[in-house]
């Protein structure tokens, strides 16, 4: 593989220092995004560290002054899916991650509302979950989220809107309830609906 950085003018130590300072400030956000993708905190930190190092190695290709947060989130997301693609297709429902997330939030100290929300999120298709998190929690504009997810702005808008509706329905139904007898039925219905929606494109 050729090194794209080799053809560029040499970077000064000050450039690297400025880049590093900005990158370090983004670590908490990378950790938070990784946590929403992986569920498991230890796996999420591994992912965030990998993304941080990839960003550092690719610093020559970053235009200082542009949105580094979106750029690093894109790197993190690509890293996540390239690891994931080895075992299953990206578009499939991420059942395994959902289960891991359910295990990860089985913490008696966790606030109930957040516990419910995490479980509700785990029930969404991965592409809807990430769109909702980028726009609804990460503070990204639709255009930025589209860049991060490598898709059209309209696709992000529709994913966010589906995710909002689905999450609302999940939380309304109480289908997140661990001990609820109806949880299985609600879950099946939600997954079926999400699957149906994702095929209409």
């Amino acid at each position: 593989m050729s090194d794209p950085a080799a053809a560029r003018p040499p970077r000064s130590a000050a450039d690297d220092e400025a880049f590093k300072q900005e990158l370090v400030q983004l670590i908490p956000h990378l950790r938070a995004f990784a946590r929403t993708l992986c569920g498991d905190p230890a796996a999420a930190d591994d992912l965030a560290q990998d993304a941080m190092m990839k960003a550092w190695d690719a610093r020559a290709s970053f235009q200082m002054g542009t949105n580094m947060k979106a750029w690093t989130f894109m790197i993190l997301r690509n890293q996540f899916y390239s690891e994931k693609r080895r075992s299953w297709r990206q578009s499939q429902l991420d059942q395994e991650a959902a289960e891991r997330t359910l295990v990860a939030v089985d913490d008696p100290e966790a606030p109930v509302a957040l516990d419910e929300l995490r479980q509700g999120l785990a029930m969404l298709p991965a592409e809807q979950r990430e769109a909702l998190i980028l726009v609804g929690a990460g503070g990204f504009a639709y255009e930025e989220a589209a860049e991060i997810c490598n898709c059209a702005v309209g696709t992000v808008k529709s994913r966010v809107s589906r995710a909002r509706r689905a999450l609302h329905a999940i939380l309304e139904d109480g289908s997140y309830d661990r001990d609820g007898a109806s949880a299985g039925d609600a879950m099946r219905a939600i997954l079926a609906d999400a699957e149906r929606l994702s095929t209409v494109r």
Partner: protein
Amino acid sequence: MGDENAKRGRPSRKRHADSMIEKMPSPDPRKPSAALDEARLRQQAIGVRLRQMFDDVVNEDVPDEFLEILRRHDIKTVENG
């Protein structure tokens, strides 16, 4: 046709009264605007929780590991480069 024009252009007093009645507030007992407001409130509540969940992690202390890895990698790059 003349009848048609009369209806459109110059409605009689009675017709006018009828159309006023038709424009009375919706008789729908479910009050759709109130239901919409409530749905919006619930969506807002979900949004707030979502940000809270994300910010909880953002506000955690970053494990020393992160800076340590960056520092070590930096030295390696300088030595190799």
